[in-house]
C-alpha cells in the first residue's frame, strides 16, 4: 500500500502547473504546493527529527501543506480549530505538548496568551529554508485528533500512518478521483472528515476548494455553483442549510457527480432533495468514528434505488475492504454494538491508557489495538445496516431502561424529521425540528402506538432549527443546559 507522502509527491511531479488548491483569491499549483511541503518539512527538521507538531492554521493551502510536511519529516500532527474558543485551543495545546507549532503571526499571540514564547513557532508567513529533497522514514503515527471528551477534557485519538494509508487507498478506489475533479473542503481541519478531502484530493491530483469564508459556509450551494464543484463532502446537516437556502436545485447542484456524507445520520429528505436536483448524482453514505480513521463503511446510492435503503434514517452500508464490523452484545445476531476490526483502528488515546483499554481491544497493554468498541448501536433490517444510537444514551426512567435514540427514532417515524431527546431534572424532554406547526396531542397519541407510556416525552420543545455544535451536529448539551433548572 502506497504511503500518502509518496502519492502526493508523485502526483505533484506529474501534474506540475495543475491547480491543487483554489479559492476566489487565486490558485496554488501542485508544483507550488509541493515546494511549500518540502520547505515546511525542512523547517520542521531544523527544529527536531520526527517532530510532534500542532497545526494552528485555518483551512488553507498552507495548512494542507503542513500536514504533508510533518509526515514527510517523519513526524505526526494535531490540528486545532483556530475559530474554537480560546479555552478549547489551549486545552489541546496543553494536552498535546507539541515540539513545534506551525501557524501565523496570530499564533504567536495565541502562544503568548498561553504563557509560551514564540520559540516553538514556525510562522508560514516568514521565509522558509530550502526544500527538503526526499521524505524521511515514516513514523508510526500520522495525526492525533482531539475530540470532545465526556469529562470536558479533549481526548486525543492517535491515528496510525498505516491506517491513514489504508483509508486513502480505499477512497481512491471507491471514488474514482480524477485530475478533473473539483473537490469541496468544508469541514474544519480539526474535524477528521477533512482528512477525506485533503488526502483524498491531493494524493490523486484533484483540485481542493476550501470553504473558509462566512458566506460559503452559510450558503454552501453558492460555492458549489460558483466553483462548479464535482465532489461534495460534509456532515448531512449541511444539506439542510442548502435546502433551506433554496439551493437544492439543478442550477446550484448540477456540477456535482458525487456527494459523500459522514458524521451523523443521513436522512431520507436529504437524499430526496439531492436526487430531485441532480438525478444522475452518486451519493456515498458512510459511517465511522474518528477511532477507525474517518469512516469504515460505504453505501453507494443513486436515484433509482435509494428508497430501499431508507427507514427513519439512511442505511450506513457495509464494511469497506480490509475492515470488518461485528454487532456484539445485542439481543440477536442482527442487533448490537458496532465493534470495528481492521487496519484503520486507531492506536488508542493520547496519553490515556485507561480510556484506551476501556474502548480498544488489544492482545496486551503494550501492543497496538486490533479492534474498537464504538459504543454505537446498530441493527440489520432486510440486509441493510442502520445506526440506532449511542449505547451511552441509555437512561433509566421510573426504573425502566430506555435508549434515548429509541425515542428519537419513534419521533422520526411519527413525522418529525429531526429530533433529539434528553432527561432533564428527571423528566423526559423532546426537542423537535419542524418547518411548520404541529399537533402535539396527535403526536403524543401516535407516540403511544410506538413506545411504552414511560418512554413518551412529557415535555416538547419546538424549533425551526435545532442548535448545532461546531461540527454541525445537534448540540444536545446546549439544549440540556438551556432547559435545566437548578
Amino acid at each position, binding site marked *: 500500500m502506497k504511503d500518502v507522502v509518496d502519492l502526493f509527491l508523485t502526483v505533484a511531479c506529474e501534474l506540475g502547473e495543475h491547480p491543487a488548491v483554489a479559492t476566489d483569491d487565486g490558485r496554488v499549483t501542485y508544483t507550488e504546493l509541493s515546494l511549500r511541503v518540502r520547505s515546511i518539512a525542512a523547517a520542521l527538521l531544523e527544529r527536531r527529527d520526527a517532530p510532534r507538531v500542532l497545526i494552528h492554521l485555518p483551512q488553507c493551502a498552507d495548512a494542507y501543506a503542513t500536514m504533508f510536511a510533518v509526515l514527510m519529516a517523519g513526524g505526526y500532527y494535531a490540528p486545532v480549530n483556530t475559530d474554537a474558543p480560546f479555552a478549547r485551543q489551549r486545552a489541546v495545546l496543553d494536552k498535546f505538548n507539541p515540539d513545534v507549532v506551525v501557524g501565523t503571526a496570530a499564533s504567536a499571540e495565541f502562544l503568548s496568551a498561553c504563557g509560551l514564547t514564540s520559540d516553538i513557532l514556525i510562522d508560514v508567513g516568514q521565509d522558509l529554508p530550502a526544500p527538503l529533497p526526499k521524505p524521511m522514514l515514516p513514523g508510526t503515527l500520522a495525526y492525533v485528533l482531539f475530540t470532545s471528551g465526556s469529562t470536558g477534557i479533549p481526548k486525543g485519538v492517535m491515528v496510525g500512518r498505516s491506517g491513514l494509508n489504508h483509508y486513502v487507498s480505499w477512497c481512491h478506489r471507491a471514488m474514482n478521483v480524477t485530475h478533473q475533479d473539483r473537490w469541496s473542503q468544508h469541514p474544519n481541519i480539526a474535524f477528521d472528515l477533512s482528512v477525506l478531502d485533503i488526502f483524498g484530493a491531493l494524493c490523486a491530483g484533484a483540485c481542493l476548494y476550501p470553504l473558509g*469564508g*462566512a*458566506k460559503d*459556509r*452559510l*450558503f454552501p450551494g453558492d460555492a458549489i455553483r460558483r466553483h462548479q464543484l464535482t465532489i461534495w463532502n460534509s456532515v448531512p446537516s449541511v444539506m*439542510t*442549510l442548502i435546502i*433551506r*437556502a433554496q439551493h437544492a436545485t439543478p442550477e446550484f447542484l448540477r456540477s456535482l457527480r458525487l456527494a459523500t456524507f459522514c458524521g451523523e445520520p443521513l436522512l431520507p429528505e436529504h437524499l430526496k432533495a439531492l436526487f430531485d436536483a441532480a438525478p444522475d448524482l452518486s451519493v456515498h453514505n458512510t459511517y465511522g468514528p474518528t477511532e477507525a480513521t474517518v469512516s469504515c463503511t460505504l453505501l453507494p446510492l443513486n436515484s433509482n434505488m435509494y428508497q430501499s435503503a431508507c427507514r427513519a434514517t439512511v442505511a450506513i452500508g457495509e464494511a469497506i475492504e480490509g475492515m470488518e464490523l461485528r454487532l456484539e452484545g445485542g439481543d440477536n445476531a442482527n442487533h448490537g454494538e458496532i465493534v470495528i476490526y481492521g487496519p484503520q483502528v486507531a492506536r488508542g488515546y493520547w496519553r490515556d491508557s485507561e480510556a484506551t483499554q476501556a474502548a480498544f481491544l488489544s492482545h496486551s497493554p503494550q501492543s497496538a489495538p486490533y479492534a474498537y468498541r464504538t459504543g454505537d448501536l446498530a441493527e440489520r433490517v432486510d440486509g441493510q445496516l442502520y445506526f440506532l444510537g449511542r449505547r451511552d444514551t441509555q437512561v433509566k426512567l421510573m426504573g425502566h431502561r430506555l435508549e434515548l435514540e429509541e425515542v428519537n427514532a419513534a419521533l422520526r417515524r411519527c413525522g418529525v424529521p429531526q429530533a433529539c431527546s434528553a432527561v432533564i431534572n428527571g423528566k423526559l424532554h423532546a426537542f423537535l425540528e419542524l418547518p411548520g406547526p404541529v399537533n402535539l396531542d396527535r403526536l403524543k397519541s401516535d407516540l403511544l402506538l410506538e413506545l411504552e407510556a414511560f418512554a413518551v416525552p412529557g415535555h416538547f420543545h419546538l*424549533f*425551526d*432549527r*435545532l*442548535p*448545532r455544535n461546531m461540527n*454541525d451536529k445537534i*448540540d444536545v448539551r*446546549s*439544549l440540556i443546559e*438551556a432547559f435545566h433548572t437548578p
Partner: protein
Amino acid sequence: MPLPTPLELIAAALECSQDSLNEHSGLARHPQWDSLGHLRIMMALEDAYGISITDASIREFETFSAILAAYALAQKSAG
C-alpha cells in the same frame, strides 16, 4: 410600509418569541440562533434593510446589538 424593527425581524427569522431575545442574544447565544438561524436572519436583513450578504456582513451581524446599531443608523440617515 414601515421597516420591521430588529426585534421583529430577528424573532420572525428565528421563529421565536420576542421575549426570548435581548441585547446579549447572538449567534450561538440563543437556542435558535445557530447557522441556519443566522442564514435566515441574513436573508431577512437583505430583504428588509437592503444589507448585502457578504463575508463581512455575515460576521458583522452576528449579534442583536450589531443589528440594532445598523437599524439606528439606517433610521437616522432616512430621517
